[in-house]
Structures are given as structure tokens and as C-alpha cells.
């Protein structure tokens, strides 16, 4: 009855398997097929190169603002590689690597980043929700979707991505709580890339880790080296199994770093030292993984070169397809579509008025 300690069974591990110096923990090393390892590598590379290409297209004025993934490829690929194809990915706005993992059309993302709504349309079987820009808001969708899948006895789970900054939003808290209360088969992947635009992780919240925010719900959690694709994979796999078989959610904090700008309108020199970026470049997940694959004779230098070529071709084809699509998208009156299953009469009238005006203006412009 006096003052006594309450035992709250909190548990938080940090997982790292392949560290930045290439040192491998053999006991923890997952036994993955060569094929899977090669695919993971290729997708990481594709994400990196595609990101770079979009960045240069943006700088040429051919794309609008977007949020580069550079540096976070391991955090995303390691996580989604632990999913089945029918599992659902619920992204924020930086999940380019998760997107390429699922073989979704790159030209769609180009179209989206070029300012065309049509880019938001994903294939029917994609099981990948649209980009969600309002920070932290999509996690609730992942929880509700997971619950719905469970209720309908589908053996599918959901995995949602968000950043360090997102953990400050009230929606993060509500999503974590709902996920536990309703025993939702969902995995929460927090990519702690150290910044929310200019705000460093340390100013975002006072907790020592982000992972420990799971303690508030007695939810399992883990912190991993987010630039170690093997560690991310292992942590995610465990969480995916826990979600699928026992309907218990998990919060995984991937400690990573955004090597590029926040978005293409951002100037990081305002808020972080170049020295810090340099340090993190040494921890780049891709060379690290390549060293590992080479040391295991899964990948040769020639393989890397061939992969780079394949990736280059994939991107080239996508850019071409995108250009073709853009050329066909000349009717702005499509902006009236997809608000409702059926367009209400007053909206139809607005569209007609717009079309009429558009035609007249186009004609006038043509005639002088």
C-alpha cells in the first residue's frame, strides 16, 4: 500500500546486423534467398537512380516539388520486403522505394510529380494507397484498413510509413491507440531521418527514442539501424508475423538520414551542417549492402554494372511513357472528374461552362 513501483513490462531493443563498417553479426543474419537479396539490391538502386532522375527533371523545370528518398532506401525496402504481395502499403509522401518495390508504374509517379492528377491512379491490384501529404494522418487509415481486412477474414496485413516529425501529430497517438484497442494487423514504420523539414529530431520531442512511444500503449516496438537493410528486414519480418498471426501491431523506428533536400523547394544549408551530411553519407545503405552481397558472392562488380544498366533502361522507358502520356493530357476539364461516383448536376453545369470558355479561348488564341 505504500509508494511502490509498478512494473510496466517495457522492452525496447536496438537491432543492427550489418554495420556501417561492413561488420556483420552472423548470429542475427537472416537466411534470405539469393534471389530475394538481389531483388532488394536492384530495387534500392532503382529507387536511388529514379530519385536522382526526378531531381534533375525537377531542376530542369519539368517536374514540380517532390520529396526525395535518397538515404532511406534500406528503411523502405527492408520493411516492404517482409510483406506478401497482397499486403497493403500505406505511404506518406517519401515512399519512392516502397513504390518501386511493388513494380508500380514509374511513369505514374512522374505524372504525379509533373502536376497531373492522373498520376495518382494506381493499378487495381496495387494494394498501395495514394500519397498522403497531411503528416501523420495516414496511419489511421492503415489501422482501419487492417481491421477491415481482419474482419473480412483476409489474410492480408497493412504497413504504414511516416517520419520522425509525424510522431508529434495527435493522429499518430490515435492511430497507435486504435490499432491496439482493435487488435489490428498493422506494422508502423517510423523513418526517423533526423529532420522534419528543418526541425531536428531532438527538438521534435524530448523522448530518448521514438520507438518508446509504443510504451504508451503497451505495443511491441523496436529501434533498428535504418540504413541496414538486413536489420530492417528482420525487424519487419518479426512484426509482420506478429501482425498476421496474432493481430498485434508493432512500432519500428528506423534510424536513418535524409541525404537530400526535404523537398525540392528546400535549402538544407539553412539548418544542418554539411559535415553532418558527410558523416551520414558514409553510412549510405546502398554501398553497405553491395559490400555485403559481394562478400557473399551474391553480386559481382559485373552484376552491379548490369543492374545499373537495367535500372537505367527501366527509368528511360518510364520517362518515355510519361512523355507520351503528358502529350495526350490536353483537356483540363478532367479536373471536374472523380469527385463523386456520379457528377452532380451543378458540377456538370460548371464543367460545361468551363469547356465552352476553354474552346472559345483556344479558338481566339488560334485566330489571333
Amino acid at each position, binding site marked *: 500500500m505504500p509508494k511502490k513501483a509498478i512494473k510496466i513490462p517495457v522492452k525496447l531493443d536496438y537491432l543492427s546486423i550489418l554495420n556501417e563498417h561492413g561488420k556483420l553479426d552472423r548470429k542475427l543474419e537472416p537466411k534470405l534467398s539469393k534471389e530475394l537479396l538481389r531483388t532488394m539490391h536492384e530495387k534500392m538502386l532503382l529507387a536511388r537512380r529514379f530519385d536522382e532522375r526526378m531531381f534533375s527533371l525537377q531542376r530542369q523545370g519539368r517536374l514540380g516539388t517532390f520529396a526525395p528518398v535518397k538515404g532511406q532506401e534500406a528503411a523502405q525496402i527492408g520493411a516492404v520486403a517482409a510483406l506478401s504481395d497482397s499486403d497493403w502499403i500505406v505511404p506518406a509522401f517519401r515512399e519512392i522505394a516502397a513504390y518501386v518495390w511493388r513494380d508500380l508504374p514509374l511513369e505514374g509517379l512522374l505524372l504525379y510529380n509533373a502536376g497531373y492528377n492522373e498520376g495518382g*491512379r494506381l493499378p487495381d491490384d496495387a494494394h498501395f*494507397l*495514394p500519397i498522403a501529404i497531411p503528416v501523420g494522418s495516414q496511419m*489511421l487509415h492503415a489501422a482501419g484498413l487492417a481491421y477491415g*481486412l481482419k474482419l473480412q477474414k483476409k489474410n492480408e496485413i497493412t504497413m504504414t510509413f511516416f517520419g520522425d516529425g509525424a510522431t508529434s501529430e495527435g*493522429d499518430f497517438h490515435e492511430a497507435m491507440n486504435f490499432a491496439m484497442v482493435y487488435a489490428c494487423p498493422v506494422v508502423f514504420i517510423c523513418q526517423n531521418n533526423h529532420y522534419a523539414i528543418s526541425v531536428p529530431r531532438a527538438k521534435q520531442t524530448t523522448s530518448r527514442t521514438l520507438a518508446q512511444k509504443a510504451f504508451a500503449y503497451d505495443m511491441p516496438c523496436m529501434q533498428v539501424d535504418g540504413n541496414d537493410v538486413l536489420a530492417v528486414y528482420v525487424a519487419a519480418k518479426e512484426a509482420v508475423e506478429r501482425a498476421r498471426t496474432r493481430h498485434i501491431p508493432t512500432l519500428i523506428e528506423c534510424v536513418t538520414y535524409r541525404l537530400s533536400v526535404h523537398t525540392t523547394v528546400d535549402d538544407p544549408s539553412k539548418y544542418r551542417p554539411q559535415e553532418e551530411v558527410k558523416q551520414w553519407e558514409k553510412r549510405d545503405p546502398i554501398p553497405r549492402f553491395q559490400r555485403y552481397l559481394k562478400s557473399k558472392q551474391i553480386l559481382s562488380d559485373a552484376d552491379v554494372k548490369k543492374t545499373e544498366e537495367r535500372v537505367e533502361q527501366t527509368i528511360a522507358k518510364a520517362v518515355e511513357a510519361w512523355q507520351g502520356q503528358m502529350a495526350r493530357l490536353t483537356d483540363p476539364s478532367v479536373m471536374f472528374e472523380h*469527385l463523386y461516383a456520379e457528377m452532380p448536376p*451543378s458540377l456538370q453545369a460548371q464543367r460545361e461552362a468551363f469547356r465552352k470558355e476553354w474552346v472559345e479561348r483556344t479558338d481566339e488564341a488560334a485566330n489571333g
Partner: protein
Amino acid sequence: MAELTMVQAINLALRQEMKRDPTVVLIGEDIGVDGGIFRVTDGLLKEYGPERVMDSPLAESGIIGFSIGMAISGLKPVAEMQFSGFSYFAFHQLEGHAARMRWRSQGRYHLPMVVRMPQGAGVRALEHHSESREAYYGHTPGLKMVMPSTPRNARALLLSAIRDPDPVIFLEPTANYRAFREEMPEEEETIPIGESKIVREGSDLTMITYGTMARRTLEAAERLREEDGIEAEVIDLLTISPLDDKKFIESARKTGRVVIVHEAPQTFGPGGEIVARLVEQAFLHLEAPIKRVNGYDIIVPYFAREQAYLPDAERIVRGAREVLRF
């Protein structure tokens, strides 16, 4: 069937639709064990179990965000906001996602969900429980919004809302929850979303209204007949968004005189849009300025004065006479 109150009618619609369609699920604060603080969901937990009648944590954004996810999974969630005044905790989910998922995914996903919200003054409730701010949702492209005025149209509109492939805000006028009963037909009925209804015919004056105010307007119309020999046509919007302007424009062209009655505050309120449509489409027929009889531009006072705030038959009659005298 029996005569039912609006609470019972909504309960009936939920019960029957949950039976017919196993994908319909309910979620909200106190909707399960308690049966809802107004008893609207009474008995449904027992009938359909906690997996489909979900007492939720106290978090409105959670309820809406979670419902969006459920809708994507193939369920048809009917979410309850305990009062519309607390729906603003979820406004970013409603504006930012519910209204946008079909559009953002270009038709790949859609959200067959309903958000039920008790609203309006007149039941001696506490602060935040009495406002009518339907204009917020009406001004949000991607959402639909309906507001029944009687038990029977509540049931019919709710069925339509649940079956609608897009998110529908379903406003429930608390003042009418138990104010009167209506005979309910055995067979199910629906009312097309987007269609208003002429609930009283007349050729001297057009009165446009919805929700709680529909009854008070009808009362005013009766008084106008008795006391002034005026036959007013009364239009109950039923759907607020998308707004059905056909019937009221036609009516205004006929009568030339219009009164709009709602309980929401006036400025930037729903009435403005109706006036604008009338001016755009019936300009030459208008014989008098359009009169708006509505709430004032204030927060609804605590209950001792809420009836002073609310338009009543007398205030509506006065508004009508202004228009008629012009």
C-alpha cells in the same frame, strides 16, 4: 408498421441495413453498450456483436481516419460523431481524406461511408452541442450532406446514404429526435440524395428550409394561410450538398417571393448560396428582396436563451410578411 420517432427510425434503418448488408459496421463513442447517448444505436451491439458495433476510444479523428481505412477494405462504416460540434476534431480527416480519396486515387478507391452527427439547438444541451455549421461541410467538395426533418425521411435518407458509394455527412436534428412520431411503412424506402421535396404547395411565396426548421416553417406557412390568406410553397431541401436548386428556382419563378429559413448563423451561411442561385437563375422573376430568416452571427447561447436564438414560426412569419409587403 408502428409510428416511430426519428431516433427509432434511424435505429430501424441501421438495424435493417446491417442485416441486409454484412459489410455495414458502426463505430463511435458510446454507441455499443450504451446504445448511443441518444439511444440511436440501442440494441445493435447485442444483435450484431462488438466487431460490427464498435465502441470506440474517445477520439474523433481516430473514428474518421479508422473508418476511411475500413471503407477502403470493403466495409461500409457508419461513424458517429457524438455531436457535430466535436466533428471538428476530425475536420482534417474529413476535408483532407474522406472528401479526397476517390479524387486522389482517380477512382481507384472510394469511400462508401456515412458520418452521422446530431446537430442543432433546442434540447437544452451544453456548450458545443447546439451549433449548426453545415456550411463547413457543404463547402467541401467531395462530401455529400443530407439532413432529414422527419422520422420517415430520416430512415429513407439514411438508407440512401449508406448505399451511396461516396462519403455522406448525415446530420440529425436533435430537436426532432423525439419531438413527434410518424407512421413508418413496412417496406424500406430510399430518397435519392440530391433531391429536395416540395412539402407544401403554394403560389404566393416560396419558403426554402431543411432540418429542424422544416417543421417550424410549415407551421409558419399555416399561420400565413390562416392569418394572411397567403399560400406558401415550402421546400424541404433534404440534401444540402449537392444542392438541388431546380425545385426552388422553379418555385421562385412562380411566386417571385422567397424566404430562406435555417438555424445556422447568417454570415457565409447556407442561405447565401441559395440567394445567389436564385439571383442567377430567377432574377427577373423576383418581386422582392429574398429574406433570410436564420441564426444570428453568434455562438448559440446557453440553453436559457437558445429559443431566442432559434427562428420560430413567429419570426418566420414576420420574415415572410416583409417579403410579401415589399
